[in-house]
């Protein structure tokens, strides 16, 4: 059965992009995972590992209980993040709440604070005597803190919400900002109530963003390692990621890989539902070629109450942890955060009597090289991942191909479910050895860049999708009919209109890369470590002040990045207006 030539050309034009993306995703995401899957299918050890995990006297503790905890955490964090992030996004974008710009800036910050820092901050306030060393701030004030508030699932959920709501905020705010002002104006003129506008116009339009934000938070929460490890362990709460880490740590790699595969499966099922909702509806297109600036609601009586609420959320999740981190980088003893402050950990020279002779971080020759490597890697990977992200988003929304599209969609989201450490292990398993004529990539920056690009794809694709999905197909259609090629359309229509979403995507990826530890710890090139690796190696040697100082360096860079992005966005808006 031969197709007419013209028909075949059309088919390629519509399928080519999707196919190309599928191939790239195969190399970046599927191939490493297939490699570990094959390793768990080795007849002897692999089969044994599957049996141990799923059906043995060990499985309740190895899999079922951790899996239940993981699901509970994932769902609660997703719900909490959408509520918190959505609430703040609504306040900032749609209302006249005082200090909107500052709230908007602060609401993106929590994501830049590594989750282990937030978890430590929680501990410094809420910990009780269970792990000795005296309690936290509240116990110091004479309150008795019960275990359930100090340790375990509740603190883990709260810390992760405080960390990931920034994701939901960024995605939802970008979508809200793109809500066509004309629609709201029209509704207001015809006398629709505020509630009606919210539920009738705004919510349906931002549904993709809400689902995307919730999905990102869910996926981030189920694969997070730091928070459950720090807060769950003292009451022996395990999640799949802490179990997985433990299995790899004590050399039971097959069991670790089996857990990784199961974690992926569980999350994929759940997120597949979200994906289905997203791709099943075509009616999200709301950005036409022109549109008025978004309308703002006057808040009226509840204004100050809502403002106080928003400010408290921002304060508790940004200022407070940063402040505690800063104090901890000055205090010689972690038990007395506010006494005997010194700058030694930042600028001191080596003194054998102090901190075992470690000089301050700015005297560590590795800091500068780590700084350069981190920034270069951050920029290169952020751009690559987001370019791929927008291409994938376009392929998914404009060139739907049965099976292939859903494959692309699933593959692009997979890395999110993978604990970084398992992902890195998979990369080593596949690209660590030469493949045919290709040399081994182990120990090169290229491997690190590839793995990080793959890891950032979920963010890039989700933010890209939420934006692209809203760009009306009409303009693209019109351009195509007047003969504009694919790349021309991408450059002249998609990218400019998606700029706001793209900036958000770039920002999230950049910040995520420079703070990433899980992947880099296994793949960094020994000749040039990264900032996060440096911070970790300080921390693992018990030099917490130095580790906090390096974390703050990462934080400052992230804040500059966010500030720059905010400025950029502001200018763009003026240009458009």
């Amino acid at each position, binding site marked *: 059965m031969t197709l007419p030539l013209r028909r075949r050309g059309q088919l390629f034009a519509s399928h080519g992009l999707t196919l190309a993306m599928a191939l790239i995703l195969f190399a970046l995401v599927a191939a490493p995972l297939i490699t570990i899957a094959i390793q768990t299918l080795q007849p002897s050890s692999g089969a044994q590992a599957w049996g141990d995990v799923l059906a043995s006297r060990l499985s309740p503790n190895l899999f079922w209980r951790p899996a239940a905890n993981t699901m509970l955490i994932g769902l609660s964090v997703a719900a909490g993040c959408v509520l918190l992030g959505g609430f703040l996004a609504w306040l900032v974008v749609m209302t006249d709440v005082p200090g909107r710009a500052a709230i908007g800036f602060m609401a993106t910050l929590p994501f830049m604070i590594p989750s282990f820092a937030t978890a430590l901050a929680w501990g410094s306030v809420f910990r009780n005597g269970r*792990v*000795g060393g005296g309690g936290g701030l509240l116990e110091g004030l004479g309150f008795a803190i019960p275990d359930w508030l100090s340790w375990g699932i509740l603190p883990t959920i709260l810390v992760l919400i405080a960390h990931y709501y920034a994701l939901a905020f960024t995605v939802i705010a970008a979508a809200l900002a793109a809500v066509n002002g004309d629609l709201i104006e029209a509704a207001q003129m015809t006398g629709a109530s505020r509630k009606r506008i919210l539920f009738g116009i705004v919510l349906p339009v931002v549904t993709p963003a809400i689902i995307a934000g919730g999905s990102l938070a869910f996926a981030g929460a189920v694969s997070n390692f730091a928070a459950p490890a720090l807060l769950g362990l003292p009451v022996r709460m395990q999640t799949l990621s802490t179990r997985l880490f433990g299995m790899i740590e004590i050399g039971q790699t097959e069991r670790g890989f089996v857990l990784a595969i199961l974690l992926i499966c569980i999350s994929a099922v759940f997120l597949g539902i979200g994906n289905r909702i997203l791709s099943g509806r075509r009616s999200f297109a709301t950005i036409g070629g022109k549109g008025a600036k978004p309308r703002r609601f006057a808040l009226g009586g509840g204004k100050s109450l809502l403002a106080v609420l928003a400010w408290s959320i921002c304060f508790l999740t940004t200022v407070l942890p940063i402040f505690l981190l800063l104090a901890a980088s000055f205090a010689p003893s972690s038990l007395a955060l506010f006494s005997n402050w010194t700058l030694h950990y930042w600028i001191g020279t080596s003194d054998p009597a102090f901190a075992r002779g470690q000089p301050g971080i700015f005297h560590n020759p590795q800091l500068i090289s780590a700084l350069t490597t981190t920034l270069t890697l951050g920029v290169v990977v952020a751009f690559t991942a987001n370019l791929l992200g927008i291409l994938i988003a376009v392929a998914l929304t404009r060139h739907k191909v049965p099976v292939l599209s859903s494959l692309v969609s699933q593959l692009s989201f997979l890395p999110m479910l993978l604990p970084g450490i398992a992902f890195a292990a998979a990369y080593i398993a596949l690209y660590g050895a030469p493949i045919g004529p290709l040399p081994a990539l182990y120990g090169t920056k290229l491997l690190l860049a590839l793995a990080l690009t793959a890891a950032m794809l979920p963010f890039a694709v989700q933010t890209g999708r939420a934006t692209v999905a809203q760009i009306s197909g009409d303009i693209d259609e019109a351009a195509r009919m007047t003969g504009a090629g694919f790349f021309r359309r991408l450059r002249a229509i998609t990218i400019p209109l998606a700029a706001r979403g793209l900036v958000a995507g770039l920002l999230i990826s950049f910040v995520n890369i420079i703070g990433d530890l899980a992947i880099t710890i296994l793949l960094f090139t020994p000749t040039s470590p990264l900032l996060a690796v440096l911070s970790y190696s300080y921390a693992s040697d018990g030099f917490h002040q130095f580790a906090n100082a390096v974390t703050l360096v990462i934080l400052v860079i992230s804040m500059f990045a966010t500030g720059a992005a905010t400025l950029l966005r502001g200018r763009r808006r003026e240009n458009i207006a």
Partner: protein
Amino acid sequence: MYRIFTPLCALALATTAHAQDLDGLSVEGLLAQAQKEAKVTVYAFTSRIGRVEEAFEAAYPGIDMVTFDMSSTEQIARIKSEAAAGIAGVDVIYISDAPVVLSELASQNLITPYVPPRVAGVLPDQFKSPLLAQRLSTKVLMFNEEAHPDGSPVKNVWDLTKPEWKGRVIMVDPLQRGDYLDLMTEFVLRSDDMAKAYEDAFGRAIDLADGIDNAGQQFIADLFANDLVLVGSTDDVNKAIGAKGQQNPPIGFTSYSDRRDNEDEGWALQVANNVKPSNGIVFPAFLGLNPKTSNPAAARLAVDFMMGDNSETGGDGFKPFYVAGDWPTRTDLTPHPDAIPLADFNGWQIDPAQTVTIRADVADFILALQ
């Protein structure tokens, strides 16, 4: 191309042929070739390697020592990956986690032993084979000496399973850190001693519960049942036990040598030595070579340097490791004045070859408990 290729081949052949001969050379004999190689890369499981690097470069100008501080687990993953990728990334490997090193690296010939002839005569055989042990470290019972000025509140490890210590025994999750799994494994390996100690503690013979095979397992099960507190790192354990100003501090297993931080950190850590049947484990830190090393002479020189010089305390090469709570394996070095001598120390010295036989089973046993 051909012209470059031939000398490279010749060099490769020469390197292999000379590896055996190099083992017998003295420092002076190694030096000329080491200076030609001009570089040596070290993976080490301790940050103290930074000070070794400084001292080495001062002692042997012209030979650049490049050091990387990473945990034993990371090193093992990295060494395996590098071998698979055919890269000789490291020359000298300084690593703990003996059971895994022996079963996964040494058995695959990914790490090769080298004993510098200069110190071979002052090392007991057990520390020369299968790999060279540079020093001994510990995971032992420590308490807060401020709260217990009269010495350890625990005289028998079985006390830890009694109600008065419920929720107040702390250690790192043995399913996340190899050292602690080795400790648990040792309790099982020493089940006979554990059974005797039980009689001392409770005045009757031990009665094993269903599904439990020996006294060691029973101890682990009872310890977990007594609301054992697990944390993620040794530093957390130190802080919990050692922090001053506590009314009723916990007790737990950590490194004896971490006492050296008492002053810096405001801790009151002290080792509980008089404990029946033992206070924990003593295990080796290995020094070995990458069999594919491209700097074979410089690598051997570095190992020689890290074993310490001929002075009483081992000189600059050993200085970072000359601390109370770590014991040199060399018999000719003067013991650290502040430390309990190894001969009087109550910890069990692990036999990595024995440990590895049941380590995975013990891990499964613990997994079923938590």
